[in-house]
């Protein structure tokens, strides 16, 4: 009988060893990593590079908060401040949030979860990483050579006619990264349709897979519209074709339609995989199947579909017609429903579950609370009447940081911690990681909750200076940011530490269901020695019990 306050079940540490052959040591040498087709190695490549870009984006965030400590624009020139927040947004969105869970956890886990040996297109997978790196390095280069100051939204006609900054190169970097995203999504869709193991029907798939499937649809169908928007901006800047230029008869708002047609589904690309992680974590740490599996699965797809219908709610004050405002506002109310369904289902999963509070679960709880707040404030913003007052203020900034950082980033950390033993064969140190989770939660709330109030009071976003009466809340926010920074730095340190000194995890330290937990940690390159047959439901803890009894009985 394991102790009630943890479900962790590790092998005897005095005799346990990392499996002799696994995907990490199967081949050695730099080229075996740089030319790999193994989805697990590509996932690790992504993990390292994404972490790198996250800290660059984080450093930029630190600069923003430092500037906003005082009401005057005294730390840097206002033009520089514009560049700092633009690059912060571009790096965080395109080079961290969009690829974070799909490219690391999705790449690693989807073949394992469906019982396949790899993704359908391993070479495309590797290409996807190289495109990501090319785009990322180009983005850093543009930063170093002067950056871009249009905001991550590249709004025309500012970006096409009024700035002299590196719009073209940044646009190119985002264009390239977009293809990385498209190829990842394409790969996932083909794999999930065509490579499931025998018996693995759609409704036996882990909800993590459903979430990635829905996000992949968005990646494939939405990202190309961003690509054409960037191409048109490039043509406008270089040749001056006039498609967004009012003096030539163009409409700047057309750019926004094309841009947001992608960028709204993009936020669902960012959050859906995180929601997939949360489904897995909440189920495991409540020892209960996810309540309303079908509802959660279908709501993922519903979010993806409805997410295509609401983009102009980012444009309520930009000059769209009032009738369009009405329609898009109404549709935005609809899209909130499937997200809420998930929160309810996770809550009902917790009800009468056997809950323990390991680190992934702490992050999951943080997700549920913070995403709910962020999501609800999204509804306030979707109502066009209130949006007119709240848009372009810090309310928006708070809203999207609550869903993206309080939601998505927490889900990412939950997932990294949850599957760390599977990816590396080692456990992370539990106490310090729980501390980091709590520190992150506190730091996050201190950073971003004041921003809701600032927004309501009228502080505009993207301004380096502000009226002095807003200073106290800004100081709180900056203080919170420094705590948040500590909370994010700690995992890097202890996770790296755990690679050498962490406890040996064994196959299934969490006693979780799911095919990935029935094989060794770290897995073999070919994942499964014997093709698995899926003969039980998802989240079937009784099946797990029977497996354990069989093991115990056979060892004797």
């Amino acid at each position, binding site marked *: 009988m394991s102790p009630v306050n943890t479900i962790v079940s590790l092998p005897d540490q005095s005799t346990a060893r990392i499996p002799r052959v696994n995907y990490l040591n199967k081949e050695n040498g730099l080229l075996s990593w740089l030319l790999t087709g193994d989805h697990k190695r590509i996932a690790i490549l992504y993990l390292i590079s994404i972490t790198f870009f996250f800290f660059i984006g984080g450093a930029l965030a630190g600069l923003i908060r430092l500037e906003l400590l005082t009401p005057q624009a005294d730390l840097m020139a206002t033009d520089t401040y514009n560049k700092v927040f633009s690059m912060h947004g571009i790096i965080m969105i395109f080079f961290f949030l969009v690829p974070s869970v799909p490219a690391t956890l999705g790449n690693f886990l989807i073949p394992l979860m469906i019982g396949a040996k790899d993704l359908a297109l391993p070479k495309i997978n590797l290409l996807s990483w190289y495109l990501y790196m090319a785009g990322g390095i180009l983005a850093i280069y543009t930063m170093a050579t002067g950056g871009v100051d249009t905001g991550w939204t590249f709004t025309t006609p500012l970006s096409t006619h009024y700035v002299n900054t590196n719009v073209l190169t940044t646009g190119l970097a985002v264009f390239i990264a977009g293809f990385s995203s498209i190829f990842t999504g394409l790969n996932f869709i083909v794999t999930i349709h065509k490579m499931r193991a025998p018996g693995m029907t759609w409704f036996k798939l882990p909800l993590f897979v459903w979430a990635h499937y829905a996000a992949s649809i968005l990646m*494939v169908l939405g990202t190309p*519209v961003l690509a054409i928007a960037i191409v048109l901006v490039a*043509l406008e800047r270089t040749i001056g*074709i006039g498609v967004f230029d009012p003096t030539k008869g163009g409409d700047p708002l057309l750019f926004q339609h094309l841009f947001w047609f992608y960028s709204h589904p993009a936020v669902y690309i960012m959050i859906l995989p995180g929601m997939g992680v949360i489904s897995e974590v909440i189920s495991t740490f409540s020892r209960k199947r996810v309540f309303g599996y079908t509802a959660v699965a279908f709501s993922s797809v519903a979010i993806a579909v409805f997410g295509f219908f609401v983009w102009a709610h980012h444009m309520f004050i930009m000059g769209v017609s009032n009738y369009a405002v009405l329609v898009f506002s109404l549709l935005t109310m609809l899209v909130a429903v499937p997200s809420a369904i998930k929160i309810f289902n996770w809550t009902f999963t917790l009800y009468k579950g056997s809950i323990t509070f390991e680190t992934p679960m702490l992050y999951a709880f943080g997700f549920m609370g913070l995403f709910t707040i962020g999501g609800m404030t999204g509804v306030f913003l979707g109502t066009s009447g209130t949006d007119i007052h709240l848009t372009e203020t810090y309310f928006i900034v708070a809203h999207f940081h609550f869903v993206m950082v309080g939601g998505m980033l927490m889900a990412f950390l939950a997932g990294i911690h949850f599957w760390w033993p599977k990816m590396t064969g080692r456990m992370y140190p539990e106490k310090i990681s729980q501390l980091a989770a709590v520190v992150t939660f506190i730091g996050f709330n201190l950073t971003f909750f004041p921003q809701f109030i600032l927004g309501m009071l009228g502080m505009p976003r993207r301004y380096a200076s502000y009226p002095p009466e807003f200073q106290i809340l800004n100081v709180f926010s900056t203080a919170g940011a420094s705590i948040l920074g500590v909370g994010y730095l700690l995992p890097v340190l202890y996770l790296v530490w755990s690679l050498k000194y962490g406890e040996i995890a064994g196959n299934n330290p969490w006693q979780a269901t799911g095919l990935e937990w029935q094989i060794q940690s770290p897995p073999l390159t070919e994942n499964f020695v014997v093709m698995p047959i899926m003969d039980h439901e998802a989240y079937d803890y009784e099946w797990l019990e029977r497996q354990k009894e069989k093991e115990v009985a056979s060892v004797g």
Partner: protein
Amino acid sequence: MSDSSAIAHGEQEAPHEEHPSYLRHHFESTEQQADASNFAMWLFLLTEVMFFGGLFTAYLIYRNWYYPAFVAGSHQLSIPLGGLNTLLLITSSFTMAMGVWCAETRRRSGLVLCLILTFILGLGFLGIKTIEYTEKFEKHHVPSWHYSLNSFLNPDSDKEARAAGDQPLPLDMARKTEVYFSLYFAMTGMHALHMIIGIAILGFMIFRARAGAYTAGHVTFVENFGLYWHFVDIIWIFLFPLLYLISRH
């Protein structure tokens, strides 16, 4: 899937089973591999649909706003050349489909012939496009490149405008013809870029087809390229009436 059941049900995989050389190890059968890559190509084409979709959206909006300018701009295009291009591309789609049939029925020389014909027809399309573009340069109808409103302010001075019976446009509407040509170049240019890439791949495929790579049962590459080529044809099927045939009466 019949092939997978041989490996399923707990049997250890033999150290290296007999399989065609082109079967990748993460697939259980050649059918699964062909199926997966076919589906992947379709998904890629979906991204292309959405990519061009943005351009079509821009076109529809500005055509609504500046209809007279679009009519005048469209009259500057040559229907014989555009129609000929349409015929070339449609025929090349036919030859490509025939090429896939040859690959499926293992007709190596037939496949090579079809690919060469498709290649030539594609080059013909690009050649005519070059002629059309050159004409636009000469008449100063390239946006931002010494763009001239003369043909639209004084249609009698312009051969095509005279032939279409155009009336002079007011100055502000005449200026909007630049929007028309922007979209003309953006859309046909993007289309031509896709043609160039397709023709380059065709060139590669002709060499491989001569070596018999696609007529030994492994037709996936030809099949999937065929999908791409047909898609490029479909884009042109829409571009032709939308750009060339705006009100010729």
